[in-house]
């Protein structure tokens, strides 16, 4: 276990160093991402200046929703950005390099790339949290839900891209899945009812990423918190199983590449 953690930390640090090798470009990208997220949130601020609540969701709820969404997306981008190109790797035989190492293919392929703008997402999420947090419990819950949100997003992206094992040429569908997830998780949860709400807690689990966490922080409901944790573990297990099943159908591309593995 210790070896796996050390290997994983090395992998993430290597991809982070590579992404941050041009310091000025790195800082600029991070800063731009912070500005981008805050500009987007400003729109909600303008709306909430005109209406006190949207379907029972107040401005503080939106701050928490955006904070959790941004932090979990940032964590996912920073540590598992390779998951967003999995379908490409599957179709072009790019998993060969990862199959040669005695490590979990899903994790090593997903951690092989780092999107440094994720740091900007995390910073903007923390800025939004700082205005909405009232107690130490809120800090603990926000941290916990950012982590569970990141795991659920990672698992969802793996699931969307695993389609490529069975059906080729659906890269757009995989990307669309992530886009829909991001759209659903950044809107007040009360806007969605009926079928959309069922989808939000099953196929596209945006509800577990941000909607449920905000409700838990509002009501301090321990069952809800437990449900979010169970959902994160559950989706990760499902993604891992489906990816492993798909890997049996994987056809090598005989691509020659050099990689560094510890």
């Amino acid at each position, binding site marked *: 276990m210790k070896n796996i953690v050390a290997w994983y930390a090395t992998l993430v640090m290597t991809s982070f160093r590579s992404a941050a090798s041009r310091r000025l470009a790195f800082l600029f*990208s991070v800063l*731009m991402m912070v*500005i981008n997220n805050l*500009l*987007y949130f400003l729109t909600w601020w303008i709306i909430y200046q005109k209406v006190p609540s949207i379907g029972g969701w107040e401005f503080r709820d939106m701050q928490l929703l955006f904070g959790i969404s941004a932090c979990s997306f940032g964590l996912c981008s920073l540590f598992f950005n390779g998951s967003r190109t999995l379908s490409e790797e599957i179709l072009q035989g790019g998993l060969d390099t990862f199959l040669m190492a005695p490590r979990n293919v899903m994790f090593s392929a997903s951690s092989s790339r780092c999107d440094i703008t994720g740091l900007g997402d995390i910073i903007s999420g923390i800025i939004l949290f700082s205005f909405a947090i009232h107690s130490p419990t809120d800090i603990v819950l926000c941290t916990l839900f950012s982590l569970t949100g990141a795991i659920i997003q990672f698992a969802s992206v793996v699931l969307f891209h695993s389609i490529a094992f069975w059906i080729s040429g659906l890269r757009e569908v995989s990307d669309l899945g992530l886009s829909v997830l991001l759209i659903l998780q950044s809107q007040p949860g009360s806007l969605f009812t009926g079928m959309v709400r069922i989808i939000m807690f099953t196929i596209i689990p945006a509800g577990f990423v941000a909607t449920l966490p905000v409700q838990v922080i509002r009501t301090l409901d321990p069952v809800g918190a437990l449900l979010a944790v169970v959902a994160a573990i559950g989706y990760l297990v499902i993604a891992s199983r489906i990816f492993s099943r798909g890997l049996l159908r994987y056809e090598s591309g005989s691509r020659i590449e050099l990689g560094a593995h510890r």
Partner: protein
Amino acid sequence: MPQLLWYLLMTELVVMATPRVYRDIERDLNDGTFAVLMQKPLNYGAMRVAESLGFLFGRFPAFAAIGGIGTLIFAGEVTAGLRSPLAMGIGCLLVLLSASVMTISYTVIGLCSVFLRDTRALSMVWDKGVWLFGGMMVPLVLYPPWLQEIASWTPFYHILFGVAQIALDGVTLACIHSALTLFEWSGVGIVLIELLQRKIKSDIIGEGG
């Protein structure tokens, strides 16, 4: 309500019809085409702008026709501001002018990729600026006065709201003012493209054969 739908059509036309030229420039940079073209006796920035404007002018009629028919079906009528053929023509020209300024701005963003490697964050900020200060999601009249003031000093205000207000009020002096301001901003954009190209040419080192 019909007024708002036509307003949204005009803003969407500007955003949707504009080619994302920064992606082409980034691709050129990654596959080496950029280095090859920069050595040739041609103005790379002007070439990319011209090519994108060609795309824009080519696909705009289709976008406008489909969007216009769709809006007419949902709104049930043409908004008063665009009812005369002259106003409709001026509206189309204004949208094309706005989209041209957007194209120039995307070229500037694309050229920044030489220094930034990845311009995704920069282009996202630009798009959010258009979205927020152009009044795409929430009409600018609902903004607090201080934010309206800030928005009016940005190019985004003229790119979207300045042009689309023709759907609300018809052809007014404000539209003409916005058109003139857009010409000024396009001049700023062209100067930036030229400055960036000079900087790139002085900084870039080409190796290989």
